[in-house]
């Protein structure tokens, strides 16, 4: 089993290497100018070997797993031996190693004894990289050319000399250059710190041992992953789910199809069968599809496996090019985060077919991104970007989490008070919404809503959300969560908006977004009545829903369950269902329906 020659020296080296990746991440986190980075942790740091193979990734954004190797591959291939001490590389082009334009990669090669021995790597989501909509996040762009500044793989520093042309282009093409520059500086500082610390490590261990140990760290992760995968049952499972639409063609749901094959100590995730790429800006790069696939599979493997190339060797991910899972020029992709979140849930669905007692029902669908941007009376730009998700589906052993970030993106919400102090908005509500979670033996998490009022004359409002038509699925008898909603001015002339929308807001307008509720797991009639009582008392669930969905009769005067009435009600609800058992997956309230809405089915709304 053990293939490491000196297990102690190796463990010490590995500890140091992962601290470097984490220390890089802390540097970015603490110096950033943008809430997207600090609160949403939408960045990653990593350490790769001389060939650009990932050795250690900091504990940051799962959505970036797999992104750095792809980008580094391009740099290593393009520049190869034309890589020198003092060089720093930059890129963001999704069709040349990148993910989507706001994600800017910075790589610094590290040299010792005259040869390249490693790369320090960072990727940060910048608050704005130009393009037609503030925040560069619009979901309704239809070509990459509308989305902002495309930076091909270039040297930002050439043997230590700054390439001023690149800085000048960036400065002229982004809305708030001071922010972009501040965050680029943070990325450069993180790479410098990695270089300094890694060279200390090389000094202590020697160049050859350091090289060997870097490969060993990869092999070690591979062994752990293989051992864990080998314990899963062999077989093949599939799952399909749909994204509401691409924001352009509103009547066309977009199919996601995932096939997972597990054989021995290997896994294959194949997205063949997923819809062709779409006009709206939700097309993935293959690297992002990989990140989504790795995230789902890692979540059913044991904790403690390092994030690196070794994991990727065991999990093979494929997606045909020209699909939404692997877009080609001129696919717009700024809002591809949406598709990534939905793919994680789709892969979880497939895993739930393989491992019924290990996987949760559908989450709220991942981050909703709300961007409100424009210019104040003195023509100074403002951009208020808020993206969060917070609701998990029910689990085979417990309720879905609520008010907790998504597995794919461990992001924080921003403080309402800070948003109000810095942006011309007032937050009117940030609270859970009753009766939106999917009922189940273990219910889905309750979703929340945010109401935001504009206090400036005019602004562009842009929302990227989903799960408005196709609801978060329930599993094994659990009911689907309620859909999401976007409402303009909910308190006066309420106007329902689509899930993906770009529109204009005026002073005093209020935009409300309600996230979708998490899907339930297991038959709600089997839920512990004491739990239902507690939910009613806490107003996550109404007394009506307790009665109709859970068959529990609650006495609000004494806060007790009426046992007799509950027993009778549950019996009658059961007999009303007939003999048929529910399908394993449910997108609708119909108990015995096969649940699958399919592209042609009526969208629930």
């Amino acid at each position, binding site marked *: *089993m*053990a*293939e490491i020659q000196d*297990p*102690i020296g190796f*463990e*010490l080296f590995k*500890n140091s290497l992962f*601290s470097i990746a*984490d*220390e890089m*991440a802390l540097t970015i986190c*603490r*110096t*950033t*100018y*943008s809430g997207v980075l*600090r609160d949403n942790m939408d960045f990653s740091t990593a350490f790769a070997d001389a060939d650009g193979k990932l050795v250690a990734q*900091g*504990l*940051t954004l*799962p959505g970036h797993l797999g992104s750095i190797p792809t980008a580094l591959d391009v740099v290593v291939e393009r520049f190869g031996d034309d890589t020198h001490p003092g060089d720093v590389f930059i890129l963001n082009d999704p069709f040349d190693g990148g993910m989507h334009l706001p994600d800017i990669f910075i790589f610094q090669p590290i040299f010792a004894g005259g040869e390249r021995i490693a790369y320090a790597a960072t990727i940060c989501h910048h608050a704005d990289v130009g393009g037609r909509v503030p925040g560069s996040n619009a979901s309704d762009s239809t070509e990459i050319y509308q989305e902002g500044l495309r930076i091909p793989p270039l040297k930002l520093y050439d043997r230590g000399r700054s390439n001023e042309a690149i800085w000048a282009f960036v400065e002229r093409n982004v809305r708030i250059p*001071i922010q972009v520059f*501040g965050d680029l*500086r943070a990325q450069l*500082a993180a790479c*410098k710190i990695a270089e300094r*610390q890694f060279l200390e490590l090389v000094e202590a261990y020697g160049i050859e041992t350091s090289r060997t140990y870097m490969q060993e760290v990869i092999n070690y992760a591979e*062994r*752990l992953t293989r*051992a864990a995968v080998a314990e899963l049952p062999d077989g093949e499972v599939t799952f399909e789910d749909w994204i509401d639409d691409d924001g352009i063609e509103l009547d066309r749901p977009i199919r996601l199809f995932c096939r997972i094959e597990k054989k021995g100590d290997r896994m294959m995730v194949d997205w063949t069968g997923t819809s062709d790429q779409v006009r709206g800006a939700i097309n993935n790069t293959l690297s992002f599809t990989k990140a989504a696939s790795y995230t789902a599979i*890692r*979540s*059913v493997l044991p*904790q*403690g496996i390092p994030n690196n190339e070794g994991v990727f060797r065991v999990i093979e991910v494929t997606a045909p090019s020209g699909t939404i899972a692997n877009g080609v020029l001129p696919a717009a992709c700024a809002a591809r985060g949406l598709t990534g979140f939905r793919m994680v849930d789709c892969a979880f669905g497939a895993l739930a077919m393989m491992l019924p007692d290990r*996987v949760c029902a559908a989450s709220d669908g991942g981050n909703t991104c709300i961007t409100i941007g424009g210019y104040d009376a003195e023509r100074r730009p403002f951009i208020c970007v808020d993206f*969060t*998700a917070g609701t998990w589906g029910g689990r085979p052993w417990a309720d879905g*989490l*609520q*008010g*907790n970030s998504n*597995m794919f993106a*461990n992001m*924080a*919400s921003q*403080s*309402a*008070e800070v948003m*109000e*102090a810095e942006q011309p908005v*007032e937050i009117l*509500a*940030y*609270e*859970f919404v009753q009766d939106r979670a999917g009922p189940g033996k273990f219910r889905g998490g309750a979703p929340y809503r945010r109401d935001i009022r504009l206090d400036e004359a005019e602004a562009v409002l842009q929302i990227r959300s989903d799960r408005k038509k196709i609801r978060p699925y329930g599993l094994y008898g659990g009911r689907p969560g309620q859909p999401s909603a976007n409402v303009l001015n909910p308190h006066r002339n309420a106007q329902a908006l689509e899930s993906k929308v770009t529109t204009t807001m005026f002073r005093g307008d209020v935009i409300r977004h309600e996230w979708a509720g998490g899907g339930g797991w297991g038959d709600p009639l089997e839920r512990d009545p004491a739990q239902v009582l507690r939910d009613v008392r*806490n*107003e*996550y669930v109404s007394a009506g829903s307790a009665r109709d969905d859970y068959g529990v009769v609650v006495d609000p005067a004494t806060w007790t369950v009426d046992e007799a009435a509950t027993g009778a009600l549950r019996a009658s609800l059961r007999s009303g269902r007939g003999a048929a058992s529910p399908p394993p997956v449910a997108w609708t309230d119909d108990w015995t329906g096969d649940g699958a809405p399919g592209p042609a089915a009526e969208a629930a709304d």
Partner: protein
Amino acid sequence: MDRYRVGVDIGGTFTDIVFLDSGGRVHIRKVSSSVEDYAQAIARGLEQVFDETSLAGPDVAEVRHGTTVASNAILENKGALTGLITTRGFRDVLELRNLRMPRLYDLAWEKPAELVERYLRVEVEERINSRGEVVRPLAREAAEAAVDRLVAQGVEAIAVCLLNSFENPAHERLLKEVLAERAPHLVSCISYEVLPEVKEYERTSTTVVNAYVMPTVARYLESLRGELEAASVSAPVMLMQSNGGLTTVADAIRLPCNIIESGPAGGVVGAQALARRVGLPDVITLDMGGTTAKASLVEGGEFTRSLEYSVGGGIMQGSRLLTGSGYLIKVPAIDLAEVGAGGGSIVRVDAGGSMQCGPESAGAVPGPVCYDQGGEDPTITDANVILGYINPSHLVGGELKLNAERGRAVFEERVARPLGLELAHAAYGAHQIAASNMIRAIRSVSSERGRDPRRYAMFAFGGNGPLFAATMAAALHMKRILVPPAPGLFSAFGLLYADVEHHYSRTFRRVLAEADPAEIDRAWRALEDEGRAQLAREGFPAERMRFRRTANLHYKGQIYELNVAAPPPPANGSVDRAWLDRLAEAYGEEHERTYGHRAGPEEPVELVNMVLVAEGLPDAPVVPDTLHLDRPEEEPGGSRSAYFGPEAGWTKTPVVRRSDLAGGAAGPLIVEEYDATCLVPPGARASLDDYGSIVIDL
């Protein structure tokens, strides 16, 4: 006879007591903690010291106390049934937290249960905007209805946190009035009085934690008073705060959120004071016990503080990236990084063939295999016995007998054999890996903040700190280690070095270049007045009050702030334009130092929170330079064979007493004491300084 000051530190397993008189005479005592009522163990310990020394209650001049009673109330969910009043629309701030979780890829993660359940969170119709303007007034009837509703639910404590109250507390004050009228028997906490700072989750959480532990802390301190009186001790009690300063009982009852991390603070305060006396202004402290190790940074003779922390968050594996565990409290606290590494940490081989140490711990029960109390998993202490570092027959002056053979057998079977290593080599590896885990804690307070650990001395204490200090210092290229007297009770001992200190802060967002100096001056002076009044209540005359200003600043647009000491005031004492410029420059320097880069002069620096530190200075140094420990040292143990790695191999190592080091001695050496064992490796030199600390030079 001289009267004594007494330091008392309560831990989960032991309560440590240290007596000190002005002549430097010291009595120490370790007794088992009384978990049901911690005060009882204190009284018992005091009486044991009285019995041994012929001292009596009236000989005690002051009791200084570090306690985990507040954090335990949170960890064990034993605080008050608490209600919360919030602004309409913000009922769920406490439960939504900031959404982040401390684990990645973990489907089994559960959030900590919120301290106030949703049905006890009540909204009121009101709104103040970010400029402090009342947008929607709070009607008195609405305030009354909210209070009445919570009273009807039977709550014991009520917290109030309204949006933007730090800009304008009018509505919170109205609620305070209503609470005093309609619920005078209940504990109540107003966010403006607890933490007048921006960020609603941080403020709500801190206010709720304060309310939640308030009755528990009050009951405990009453019980302590009773126990002390029963032992005829009528001396005043001062409590250690998380920030490293002392406060009064009355203040601790009002703001218990300040004493949550009271326990570990004492050791750091003592380390700072002792290091300062020997002319070492820059030290890194290492406090290692049975389950965790904690590191902190003392720089320029001052300890560093974090602006917020989580209580009950479990142990972070050295990483501060994954926040979201535990209960957030935004009060200044000595900045401690903690990792799950201690004598009880379990050693195992993972599926990838790598050796792991901790964070799982065998704890005090069943403990390491060699304790022979049912422990089945090999631990770090077992490794240290195999290596000959720890006396193989007994610990704690003979009170704890060891079964070294059993420890060896289990370590061989579970660790050495699966790795194909010789037993000693495997045990040595475990020792090294535990050290490397603790190094992550040291890095997080030093290199992660731009501080190079090589420039610092290590100050090691706790039962296991002196055993690991040399290994860690060598790996970090640190040159010098200090091990204070009574290292195993140093958290209690350190309490004796503390001064009275209070921190006041408020959010005051201004871009420095555009700010009105007079306005800033007024605001800071208002905080100073608060501090002066508090110190006066505690009996300090004006000449023994000291005030320091610090500020949390950032480049406008940055999210995170750095705390920077404000430059000395101008000659006339009032803030002026030039002073604000110096403050901005101080931020730029600190940013560069911490993160390796700074912005150009065109980027405006913004003040976010102003902070005032009010210190009450003692009239004379509390701790004399020379100390006499009254506990007789153990008999010198001759020598034993100890293992120092594959190259040095097994080496005959003298076992000595601390006093044997007076003339200096060369390693390898093992210093055995009542409360700890100190390891001096081959090649290092050990001596004693004038204050009785062991000095190890690598």
